[in-house]
């Protein structure tokens, strides 16, 4: 597992919005994002940076404290120490007050058209 210095996230909200500040969890601790732009209203896109500077045993996007959050798509770019950054896109998902989203995914293997 590489040390994750920073990650940049772009979240497109679907129908049901998030009516609170988005946060993430690194190794059990909830933190606020940095360099926040945009919003989490219906149809809006939220962009922000997280700086774990640590080994991401768990890296989660917090679900809402109340209500339900429809996420249309997420694009996450990871900046591991001493490695090239990589970007992953996640499909739509719905979070509620009992769920968080796993944001940590190591660099996937290569893809070939064969």
């Amino acid at each position, binding site marked *: 597992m590489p040390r994750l*210095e*920073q990650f940049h996230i772009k979240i497109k909200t679907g129908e049901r919005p998030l009516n609170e500040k988005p946060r993430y*969890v*690194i*190794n*059990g*601790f*909830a*933190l606020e994002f940095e360099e926040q732009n945009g919003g989490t209203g219906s149809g809006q896109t939220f962009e922000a940076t997280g*700086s*774990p*500077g*640590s080994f991401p045993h*768990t890296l*989660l996007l*917090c*679900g809402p404290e109340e209500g339900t959050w429809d996420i249309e*798509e*997420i694009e996450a770019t990871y900046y591991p120490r001493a490695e090239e950054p990589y970007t*992953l*896109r*996640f*499909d739509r*998902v719905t*979070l509620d007050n*009992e*769920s*968080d*989203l*796993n944001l940590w*995914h*190591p*660099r*996937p*293997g*290569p*893809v*070939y*058209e*064969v």
Partner: protein
Amino acid sequence: MSSWLSKVFKTNSEPGYTDIDTSEERFERRNPLAEEAYEPEEEAEPFAPEMRPPRNVVEPTILLEETETSAGSEDIRITAQVSEDFSSCVFMVNRPVLAGYSAMFASQSTAEEQSPLAAKLFQVESVASVLIHGANVTVTRGPLVRGEWEETAKAIGAHIRAHLQAGEPVMYESFFEDMPTEEELKKRLQHVLDEAVNPSIAGHGGAITLERVEGNTVYIQMLGGCQGCAASTITLKQGVHRAFREVAPQVGAILDETDHASGTNPYFKELPPEMNANA
């Protein structure tokens, strides 16, 4: 760059603190050799970020990047996705390869008896097993094989494309003729779970349930000590797969429906009452 740990130790007296303050001013203020007597500030409570109460963790589906096809045929498109540890590669074909059933081959001899397609794939150097399931063909290499997949993937992709283009059967008829019914497979697999698998992992607080059988594709779930266990992949592959295939060699793909990241405390998740031997 500040680590999340630095945020753990920031103080309430410094709102908006973003990094360790190493400025000269701070040093002077706290230097006991400075001319002015140093008066310690009121001891501030260390700031602690909120410990997040555990919740269920949702695993997102990772979307593959669209890539241009470079293959010779425009009709059959095959995308090869190498696993993170480079041990296997999934070949995703834009059409069903084997509909309704799945087939697993761990040796060339079995492949030659049952599947002309799998037999061809075993001719590619270093191929150790072939799993055909729906529109996917998963190939693993031998444990000692390292290095890039590109050349191997191209050779396998060429075999799959040529086979499908020629309209040759993926499986011989005998494969389907010898196939037990779903009920018969369920009965055999449930028996091996009850008699062999679950008693052996009960000591670790784990249990495996048979969710359903579709054709010859088996869906299982791991509970208790299995869920969230880093060794569960090994447990599943080495133990359950072998046990299932011994009693029912016709079993194809064995899919684990357990979300190993979920559960508020997976290691100590309670078993259902009917599976709790101490209940």
